């Protein structure tokens, strides 16, 4: 049952929902999980032209309240979110504000944290309580080391959370509905339209999803199968050095120490054993999935998921699924 709250109560954790083209983005639900881990329910604020239409998508387990913040703008705009969140914070006095470490949030969160003198950290992938203290974990020095950080002297903290650090919260929620009227005094950075990115020259360093093949493909003729599969899966095809040396692929597609260093969200390596020079070029990728017939292949040391299987068989099956 949903009730409408009359007055606004202080909350512990305020989650700012993120959405695009009418869909709540999964990071939002991941933030709810993060809140749950801290032992608190999340109050989720939906800032949109029609927040009600999005409310269902965030009504999951772990959400105690959904605050609808109606604004004029259909899609994300910096100043709109900055001002709306500022007013949300003022209204609800959260201890912790959670946003995703996303391109949208990069637009408004740091500026807001600076202006309001909040505790602040970005790209946080772990959280815990140490007594009364909040302790977060993030990486430093090009992701080579991690550190636990704390926020002494800050009553209020804004954290930007690394996507996929928590699983998205699910299940049925029974969140209370609320509304907050905000005043937005002009948006200086206005959304005009969306465009699909031009894919003229291949730039594997900016792809979110790389399908990477290596010596395992065997013959040059076999490459086309993977080119097709990559397209089907929405991936960009990249290769390890030997395929470039043979002239089968241009060096623009080469991942490795003498090629390009990539850090996509997903790196799917088929038939790549994981030579040191190759690993150097991709080992900080978000999620690495490796398929190789050799259970001792070095790539399994850096992969998050692995399968000892024949790459052609797996490729055939993937082709059916996408």
């Amino acid at each position: 049952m949903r009730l409408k709250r009359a007055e606004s109560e202080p909350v512990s954790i305020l989650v700012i929902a993120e959405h695009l083209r009418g869909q709540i983005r999964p990071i939002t639900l991941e933030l709810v999980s993060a809140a749950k881990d801290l032992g608190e329910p999340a109050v989720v604020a939906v800032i949109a032209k029609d927040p009600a239409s999005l409310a269902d998508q965030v009504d999951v387990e772990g959400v105690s309240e959904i605050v609808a913040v109606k604004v004029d703008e259909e899609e994300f705009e910096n100043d709109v979110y900055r001002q709306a969140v500022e007013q949300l914070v003022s209204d609800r006095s959260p201890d912790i504000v959670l946003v995703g470490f996303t391109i949208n949030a990069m637009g408004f969160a740091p500026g807001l944290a600076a202006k309001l003198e909040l505790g602040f950290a970005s790209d946080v992938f772990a959280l815990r309580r140490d007594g009364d203290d909040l302790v977060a974990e993030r990486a430093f020095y090009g992701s080579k080391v991690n550190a636990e950080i704390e926020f002494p002297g800050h009553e209020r903290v804004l954290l930007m959370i690394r996507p996929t650090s928590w699983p998205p919260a699910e299940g049925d929620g029974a969140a209370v509905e609320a509304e907050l009227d905000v005043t937005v005094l002009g948006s200086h950075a206005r959304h005009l339209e969306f465009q699909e990115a031009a894919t003229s020259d291949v730039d594997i360093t900016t792809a979110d999803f790389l399908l990477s093949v290596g010596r395992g493909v065997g013959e040059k003729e076999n490459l086309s199968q993977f080119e097709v599969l990559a397209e089907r899966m929405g991936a960009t095809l990249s290769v390890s050095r030997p395929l470039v040396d043979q002239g089968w692929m241009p060096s623009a597609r080469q991942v490795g120490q003498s090629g390009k260093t990539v850090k996509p969200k997903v790196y799917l390596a088929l038939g790549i054993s994981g030579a040191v020079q190759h690993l150097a070029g991709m080992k900080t990728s978000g999620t690495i999935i490796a398929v190789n017939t050799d259970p001792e292949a070095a790539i399994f040391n850096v992969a998050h998921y692995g399968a000892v299987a024949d790459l052609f068989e797996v490729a055939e099956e993937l082709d059916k699924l996408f």
Partner: protein
Amino acid sequence: MKIVVCVKQVAVLGDEVEFTEDERDVDPDYLDFALNEWDTYATEEALRLVEAAGSGEVVVVSVGDEDAEDAMRRCLAMGADRGIRVEAEGWLDPIQVARALAEVVGSESPDLVFAGVQSSDSVQAATGGALAGLLDLPSVAVVTKIELADGKATVHRELEGGLVDVVEVDTPALLTIQTGINEPRYATLRAIKQAEEKEIDVRKPGELGEPSYRVRKMFVPPKGEGAEMLDGGAAEVAQRIKEIVQERLA
């Protein structure tokens, strides 16, 4: 046309690491330094816009000690006109850096302020945004294209998944610049030598305020257990891969 570009000398850690005695930072002996990769793109973009405008200047500003001037000189060698270093020692978080920069940047009354989307060492992606907030400037983050007009600019904001958000932003504005927006020019040895001779203006920082966080302990991440192996035949493996991919990309 005046564009201020905020640049950072980043630390580069090799494959070996030792920590300081209090374990809150890396032993500086293990660090190399370089100009932040994003800042070469930002500097290049500023140079192009000023060149297109026919006249103006590109001013690079950085926060740090004397060693940080090395990074700035790379920008001067590329063609930036002036450099200002805001004096600071030790570790500052991005909001403190923004506070250090705010007065100097503001006093330049620039038409545009650029910062890199993020720095390669801390990857906080916050300094630019924080500075915009303190200066109350319109801002757009993760910019991959800029077209200037009178009093405003049309920029491309690169979203996850390759989608582009076309945004109209009022100027003066602060934009954080993404890699790949252009091809940064290289500096000849002559330009590098000349940049060495250039005087860099040193200023005192503004109020740094309280740090927004404090490192408790720094450590090498424990080696994972290795890959989670997926069971089953090709069909099962493919199914799991599909699930993982879709989950990660959503």
